[in-house]
């Protein structure tokens, strides 16, 4: 009994030590991440550590999108990884907004042929935002707004599929060795 109690206590102490160290390490990582996010929020460039939380990549994407560096923001997508859907949705919304701001600038300077592709890309980003989280109302409103600037047009080749999505019937006369009706 005494022996069991001794080894049980040793085991408990080892487990609690491991847990404490592990949680302390994770907590320190969280604090570093939060400091980075606050730096981005305050408008400073900051370095992202390896293995950081997806919210850090998200914060950096928001930081870059607001400063019209959309291409740099878009390449951060892989770093979001398995982030929750609302984070993905916000990421796409921020990119869509950046595209829209660029489009409005083109419109103000009457460069419409450059504005149209920007709006199309913004619409695609808003759609991605809604695919990730269908209840993102900001994305709904902005997609509605973008769609009124440049209306959706039926794409070539998809027109037919709007009526019925019928699969092609198998035509038995194409098959060799089958009777072809009357001689």
């Amino acid at each position, binding site marked *: *009994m*005494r*022996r*069991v*109690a*001794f080894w049980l*206590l*040793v085991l*408990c102490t080892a487990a*609690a030590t491991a*847990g*404490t160290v*592990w*949680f*302390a390490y*994770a*907590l320190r990582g*969280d*604090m570093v*991440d*939060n400091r980075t*996010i*606050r730096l*981005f929020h305050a408008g400073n460039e900051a370095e992202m550590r390896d293995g950081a939380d997806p919210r850090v990549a*998200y*914060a950096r994407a*928001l930081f870059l999108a*607001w400063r019209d560096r959309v291409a740099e923001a878009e390449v951060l997508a892989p770093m979001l990884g398995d982030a929750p859907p609302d*984070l993905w949705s*916000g990421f796409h*919304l921020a990119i869509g*907004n950046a595209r*829209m*701001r660029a489009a*409005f600038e083109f419109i103000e300077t009457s460069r419409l042929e450059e504005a149209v592709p920007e709006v199309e890309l913004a619409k695609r980003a808003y*759609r991605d935002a*809604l*695919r990730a989280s*269908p209840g*993102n*109302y*900001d*994305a*709904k*409103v*902005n*997609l*509605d*707004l973008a*769609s009124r600037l440049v*209306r959706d*047009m039926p*794409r070539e080749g*998809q027109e037919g599929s*709007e*009526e*019925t*999505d*019928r*699969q092609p019937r198998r035509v038995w006369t194409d098959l060799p060795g089958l009777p072809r009706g009357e001689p």
Partner: protein
Amino acid sequence: MKVLTFLFLLLPLPALAQIEVGVENPREYGWWLGDMLEQRLVVTLPEGATLDTASLPRPRSVTYWLDLVEVEAREREGEVEITLIWQNFYSALEPSRREVPSSFIRFSDGTEARLPGFTFVTSPIRPILAPSTPDQLQPDPDYRLVSTRLNILGFGLSATGLMLSVGLLAFHQAWWPFHRRAARPFTRAARHIASMRGADAGALRQVLHRAFDAAFGRVLISAELGRFLDDRPQFRSLETRLARFFETSNDAFFGRGGSQDLPGEIAALARDLAALERGRR
């Protein structure tokens, strides 16, 4: 002959008629762009046939305003339940009725069944005359901080557990601050002996005898060693060494003092007693 051909023409028809499709469509009104519409269909399988899963509609962008997001088929006894989830991207200027196309599925025996489409009314989010200007754009989403709550909780719990188990271990092993525990007389004696460097065997012997007296509750003499071992069976493994120690003590205190043992031997015995007392061996 003519009648026979006519009959052959009719033959495949009953096979088609057997397939029933039960439909549970989403509600008809009140949809916005981005909303998901879930359509559930229950198709009875033809006799002995299974669903050809390759013939199920695949998730894709069906038209410029409609996505098929998810297709799920669950086969049950004699029927198959198909769930289609669509996403509407039609940006309406006024409430507008949209038609979702139908599609076909095939079974292993070659028969086909039609999954009917449905219609729904999608409505605009903003008034038709609302201006499309930059100030109408909804703002960027907020920054999010990493939630530390779970890690703080885990850290607090494991740190408490660590303090508790270290405390219990110290209590059990009679370490500081529990090193004066009365219930660990041999441990105290072993430490006392270890600190008495250079003392002769007689002094050490007395310290160890005090420990035996404390453990037994009264003065322990060699005749009562058997009863002591019955009370504390964990010391049974040291029986011969204990017997020898008491024998030498009797000789040292009451006899001629011929068979003295070394101080090192007494210290080792005290250490072994202390280890057994704390369950280490």
